[in-house]
């Protein structure tokens, strides 16, 4: 078999970018989500509204920001509001259609931990914490999650609920009075996952080119569910790949 001509990381970012629509208003997490959202903007979704928690609304950076508050985000934004306004009027006010998050630890129901590994009072690893994510996860219309698969990252039980996904599954969100959809898509470097209708447990719906079911299971800490009809993720187009690589090259030169 010949080399695919793209890396698993590139496939992940591009698959994630395809999930976004031109009319979305997207609250962008830093890291992998930021790359995916900007590839979407530079390809099929030129009018997408990207919002970073630093208060920049409708931003269109030429390079990927290192932080959520790089000057580039403000320079290219439609408007920049204060952080209290960002969280009150725009997020809590229900104006965000997609919240795009990364995760350090994730479980099968899309609950996310970015707070601690181990016990909170005596942690093995103290992580940065949730930042905007707890309320992004609850207040955005729906949530996309993107992360590289690993046994350490995709676990049976997360150590701390930083952001609520589907809780214990089923109608747990509804029972807590949360009326948004929660996680509706997980894009990893190996596959695309969606929650199953009743249980809300993530199941693989599409494998990236060259990836087997065993590969997905070998890099996931819970027993993986596979949908009845599994598709193969279309490989990156030349335009998608070129856009992503140009963006990364500009970013590398800038930082």
């Amino acid at each position, binding site marked *: 078999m010949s080399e695919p001509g793209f890396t698993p990381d590139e496939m992940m970012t591009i698959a994630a970018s395809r999930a976004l629509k031109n009319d979305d208003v997207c609250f962008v997490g830093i890291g992998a989500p930021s790359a995916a959202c900007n590839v979407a903007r530079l390809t099929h979704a030129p009018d997408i509204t990207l919002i970073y928690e630093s208060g920049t609304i409708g931003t269109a950076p030429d390079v990927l920001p290192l932080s959520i508050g790089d000057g580039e985000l403000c320079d290219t934004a439609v408007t920049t509001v204060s952080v209290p306004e960002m969280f009150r009027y725009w997020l809590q006010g229900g104006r965000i259609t997609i919240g795009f998050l990364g995760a350090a630890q994730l479980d099968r129901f899309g609950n996310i931990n970015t707070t601690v590994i181990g016990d909170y009072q005596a942690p093995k690893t103290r992580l940065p914490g949730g930042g905007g994510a707890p*309320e992004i996860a609850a207040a955005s219309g729906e949530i996309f999650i993107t992360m590289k698969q690993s046994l350490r990252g995709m676990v049976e039980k997360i150590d701390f609920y930083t952001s609520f996904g589907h809780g214990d599954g089923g109608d747990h969100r509804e029972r807590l009075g*949360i009326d948004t959809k929660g996680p509706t898509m997980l894009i990893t470097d190996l596959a695309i996952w969606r929650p199953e209708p009743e249980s809300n447990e993530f199941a693989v719906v599409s494998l990236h080119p060259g990836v087997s079911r065993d590969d997905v299971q070998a890099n996931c800490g819970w027993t993986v569910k596979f949908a009845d009809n599994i598709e193969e993720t279309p490989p990156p187009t030349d335009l998608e790949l070129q856009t992503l690589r140009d963006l990364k090259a500009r970013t590398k030169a800038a930082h």
Partner: protein
Amino acid sequence: MATFQSLPDAVSENLHDGDTVAFEGFTHLIPHAAAHEVIRQGITDLTVVRMTPDVIYDQLIGVGLVKKMIFSYAGNPGVGLLRRMRDAVEKGWPRTLELEEHSHAAMANAYEAGAAGLPLAVLRGYRGVDYSKVNDNIKSITCPFSGETLAAVPSVQPDVTFIHAQKADRKGNVLIEGILGVQKEAVLAARRSVVTVEEIVDDLDAHPNACLLPHWTVTAICTVPGGAHPSYAHGYYVRDNANYIAWDRISSDRDTFLAWMDEHVINATPQEFAGRVEELRTQA
């Protein structure tokens, strides 16, 4: 009425051992020079507040001046974790660190409530998550009109807030432009405030709706060009991303950290910040 004075004088007159202090800035306009002056003066047992504690909080914690931190995201943005803070939390070095952890939404609301003179902030937050299990300051409240259960947190009202801004006029009115963060709220919520600025001008030339702090809301103003470095001042100099990346290595080892602090903070002055941003000005 704002007093124009040197940064060492402003720090020693306004901040005392045991105070609750915020050095605010959301990636942009982080008051590095002010925090370094606090470190030089060794003002200790501080409760530090910040939505996004980053390098200066890592430094304050690493030299042992911090008793407690109230925060919502502690990281080196885009680079990784705060290694001095981790050492304090995980190993108690150089002292143990008490944490009061919130989400950004709660912290932003708490500052706003502080500025508004309210005892608490109310938000639709923390639903389904574990924060309230580890933070007794997260409670719930029932809306008397709708019956909805909402989250409540105490307002933040620091003894002192430090911020960095682009400019002040000769009366002491302060202008902030670009990414605003929660600096206006943090100043209005505090009992005292110290603002470092890039320059003093005759006329702020501000848009009618600009983010402006009238001189009578600010305690002290200190001219410190480059005082946000390695953070940035929109329109003056860009963020020194390479410096943030370098911090990851410097902070990874206790001795390397202490040696770096000696050279760049303990034995340095506020005047040195101007030179640090010289090359970053051309890109702004």
